């Protein structure tokens, strides 16, 4: 398997293809001619993107077949006023380049108990659906897809799916007229139907509201639950009280990783904010702590006297911890 000791994959950019005026599709193959880890439909890939302002970590849904371990595909929409990751993908990444990425993880799996799967998607939200319907199709599970696009120029990905899956796919907006109506799609469904929403927040809210008004149970409504932040975020600096060392925590590393990189030690076990081992006292703070752990209680968090360095960060001008 193409995997370094830190669980990072080395991917070679095999091809780049513009599928709409603002979306590029990237096909990656393993840089070392081995094979890639398998994944499940709905998984995302965190890609490390070199940019002028340092490395960006963006998560993109995998849209290739989960059963093809020779290549991965993602689609990237250019966001001109974003954090720069998608712009760097569009402007800097070329065919033949090698990029680092994490191992695929899934926060949006399809239900194994559904009798029928209904996907409602908008725009670039269609990407996870590619892998999900591929998986369902291979298993012989019934599904249908309703995809809204902004106009004919933006319909290429939808047309691909329409070509492959025929009547199971309905496009809206590609002709400049038809509109996706969530109430119509969700009404009168038998029990055992599961709905998946892949699109902007407004679409998710709209579909969930419609589903609730029609008596759907939350257990049958699925959408990507949260951004997979890990312990990355804005940079900050921390002072270790015992040695006086001042350590810069970069956007790509956790406080714990930064301290370790600087040659200091903190206790740790799970490195995932659950075990409590790395709990550290905060001695001084000018700013706020971004608690991301499952260990500290609400009252502990509110006092800002404790921090879990393995996942939590700070937005501050000064942070001194008892280490």
């Amino acid at each position, binding site marked *: 398997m193409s*995997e370094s000791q830190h*669980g990072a994959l080395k991917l070679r950019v095999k091809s780049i293809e513009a599928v709409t005026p603002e979306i590029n599709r990237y096909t990656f193959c393993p840089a070392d001619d081995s094979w890639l*880890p*398998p*994944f*499940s439909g709905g998984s995302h890939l965190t890609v490390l993107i070199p940019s002028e302002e340092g490395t960006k970590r963006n998560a993109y849904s995998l849209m290739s077949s*989960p*059963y093809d371990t020779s290549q991965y595909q993602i689609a990237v929409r250019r966001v001109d006023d974003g954090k720069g990751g998608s712009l760097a993908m569009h402007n800097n990444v070329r065919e033949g380049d090698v990029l680092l990425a*994490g*191992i*695929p*993880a*899934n926060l949006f*799996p399809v*239900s*194994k*108990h559904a009798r029928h799967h209904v996907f409602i998607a908008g725009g670039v939200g269609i990407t996870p659906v590619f892998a999900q319907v591929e998986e369902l199709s291979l298993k012989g599970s019934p599904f249908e897809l309703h995809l809204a696009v902004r106009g004919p120029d933006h319909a290429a990905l939808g047309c691909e799916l329409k070509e492959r899956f025929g009547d199971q796919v309905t496009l809206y907006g590609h002709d400049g007229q038809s509109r996706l109506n969530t109430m119509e799609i969700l009404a009168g469904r038998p029990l055992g139907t599961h709905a998946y929403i892949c699109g902007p927040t407004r679409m998710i809210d709209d579909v969930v509201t419609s589903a609730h008004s029609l008596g759907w149970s939350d*257990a049958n409504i699925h959408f990507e639950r949260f951004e997979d932040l890990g312990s990355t975020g804005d940079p900050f600096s921390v002072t270790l009280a015992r040695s006086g060392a001042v350590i810069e925590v970069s956007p790509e590393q956790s406080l714990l990783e930064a301290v370790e990189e600087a040659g200091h030690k903190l206790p740790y*076990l*799970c*490195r*995932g*904010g*659950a*075990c*409590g*081992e790395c709990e550290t006292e905060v001695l001084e703070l000018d700013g706020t702590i971004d608690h991301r752990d*499952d*260990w500290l209680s609400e009252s502990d968090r509110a006092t800002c006297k404790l921090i879990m360095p393995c996942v939590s960060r700070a937005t501050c001008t000064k942070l001194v911890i008892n280490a």
Partner: protein
Amino acid sequence: MTTAPETTAFKTNETYTPEGDYQFRNSAEGVRRLPFPFPDDDYMYSMNLEPHVPAGDGALRAAFDIDEHYVSECAHRDQMLRDMPGVHYLALPHMMEAQWDLLELIFESYARDFPEQFTLTKNGNEWRWQNRLLGIDDSFTFGDPATLPMDPMEYATRQAQGEFVVLEEKDNTLVIGAGMTTQRADYSLKFNLGMSFFEFHGPVPKLHDMGILDRALKFLLRMKPGHPVRRVNWSLTVNPRLETSVETLPEWAPDRATVDSENAGEKVYLRIELQPLHRLPRSNAIVFPVRTYLVSLAELVQHAPNWAKRIHRALASLDHELVDYKGFHRYHAAAVEWLSQYDDGAPLATGYPWAPDGIQPNGQ
């Protein structure tokens, strides 16, 4: 200090049953490579989860450890499955994908970590599996159950040490979907199949109040493929009996009354459970393996005197609710008394044996 697997002498004629007269012994090297589960003199539950990365050259060197008991344990599994069909191995129909995931994980790990014993050759989906310890050389099509003589999970775990419970992610919890549990410690797979995380942990005292279960579930749901974690757990058992299920309780529970402070060293076994959890890539399921190691108190005294002292202190100070839950209140005092002869009270290192400066089996 520990033995590399290349030089391990695999025992073939051990037994884990009274009918077989419990012909089970650990070598000195076999004891000293154990994942000894007592980092401190006092024991209490904790979220002792850590990244499952190779550590040392003992039981934590490989992703899935095998040792000198591999051949006899596989024979025991076969015997248990024949004795009580439909009790020790179960898989719900929608778990087939997870079964293949697990087969791949076990076979890849064994072939990578023990290349002298196992070889996995892949040509697309046409796979060849060679297991030289059990004399198996099979070819099959990955993903096609018709090309194997039985379920993929049963096929793979019949050739693996330890038991395997596969948890399906559903409605933000984990549900037991399949299991190969010929070595289970006092529960029933048939009863637990389909239970959720909080349900199957129901009988464990203190866990709920301590909030450990909530945090553990959140942590497990965030687990990603390629980033396994491990924890160790332990219990005591009378005789080197691997199969101590609820179904056979009338056969083994009376053994608890046979222990006294004279024979505790030979009768009482520490049962160590090494649990390396993995997220499975295609099914998004989580496998919860329980690799069980048995070692008698006398073997600890003989081959790992520091560990014998440590277990004496941990047992002597153990919370009474845990003594009851783990099922040894009848012989707890006898075991502590027997061990006390071998504890001089000298200070011991803290930390698991595989951690830097952790407690070593012998020496300073």
